[in-house]
């Protein structure tokens, strides 16, 4: 429990406080979109596309499917804008739609999970063209983490993604995934333990991931 880890958590809390309210401009866009203004909805799409896409990619592990899922999440949001409670965060509402849709997709896909005793698959870069070194490192880190996430069950993965990429609390994640806080704690702890075991047991962790673990 060193000072550094306490500081990390403090930074997270500061980010989190910004998540619980909806920006007045966003509320204006929502109201205009409700009145049929598609340009206002386009503003919402531009603002939140990265967050929604990242969530879909982290849960589905497939870029093409993540695009489809993100598109579907936005369409569902548009068609159900009337149900959005302006007192809550629009981003949270949108991510709830996206995460539930992705989990449904995964369940339909009936994925066969790899055993956690299996070694990690080797990393493959998605393009053959040379990239700048820092871009390559970030891509390796991103894909390396994704390979690890692929090996935990969908419900655990969703909890981990909402916790680490969006900094939601146990309570918020429970509300988003329609379950109890204790179930979320259990999923998070098991998922983190599984990931720690995967990292600890394998000798093929890429250097880029080691960098993340050491430097944070």
């Amino acid at each position, binding site marked *: 429990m060193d000072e550094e880890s306490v500081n*990390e958590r403090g930074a997270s809390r500061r980010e989190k406080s910004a998540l619980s309210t909806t920006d007045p401009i966003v509320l204006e866009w929502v109201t205009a979109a409700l009145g049929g203004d598609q340009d206002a909805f386009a503003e919402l799409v531009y603002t939140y596309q990265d967050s929604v896409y990242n969530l879909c990619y982290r849960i589905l592990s497939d870029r093409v499917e993540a695009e489809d899922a993100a598109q579907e999440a936005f369409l569902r949001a548009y068609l159900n804008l009337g149900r959005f409670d302006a007192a809550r965060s629009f981003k949270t509402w949108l991510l709830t739609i996206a995460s539930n849709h992705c989990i449904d997709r995964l369940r339909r896909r009936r994925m066969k999970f790899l055993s956690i005793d299996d070694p990690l698959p080797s990393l493959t870069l998605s393009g053959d063209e040379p990239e700048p070194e820092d871009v390559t490192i970030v891509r390796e880190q991103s894909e390396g*983490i994704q390979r690890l996430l692929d090996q935990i069950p969908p419900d655990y993965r969703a909890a981990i993604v909402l916790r680490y990429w969006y900094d939601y609390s146990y309570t918020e994640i429970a509300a*988003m995934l329609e379950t109890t806080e204790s179930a979320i704690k259990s999923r998070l702890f098991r998922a*983190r333990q599984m990931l*720690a075991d995967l990292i600890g047991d394998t000798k093929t962790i890429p250097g880029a991931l080691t960098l993340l673990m050491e430097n944070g």
Partner: protein
Amino acid sequence: MANERERRRTQMQQAIDDADSPEMLSAVREQLATDADDRADFDRLRRTDRMLRAAPQEAAPEHLALKIMAALAQRLSPENMRGSSAALAIGLAAIALLLTPLLAVVGWLAIAAISSATVLGGVFGQLTLLIGSLMGALERIVAGAQDLMQASPEASLALLGLIPIAVLWMIRFRWSSEWNDDDEIGADGG
């Protein structure tokens, strides 16, 4: 023993999430200071935590927003509305098909009634009675409205004013039903 280890692991996990009470936190600190295995476990969890905290965010492809807006425009396009009209026409045709046997039975009964003077007289008698009672009801409604108009003209004007509001409300209700029927979300979220 296994339960005890599990309990300690849970406490360590909570410490990583900053969810331990101060008492629990000092208990974890003591445990880590004395138990090398637990310290190794904790270090592994903390490294995992650090890796996840620093994980890169994937940016959406450049064309995604355009793709979404195009899909939205397509879903709201007149072609899709035409699709709904076609569905309505098919539904009406199905209802007409189902009603055909019923209409045949009613027609047969009417022909049978016309062929018998007694039955025909009875049917006309019943019809006359029905029309008479409907006229009586209408007269009573008109008389009631006239009384209300004389007693308080404001109330009757307010009632007349409610008619367009009710019509608007029904139109809005129909629209919102169409949206909601089109797609349901898994969770309310908001």
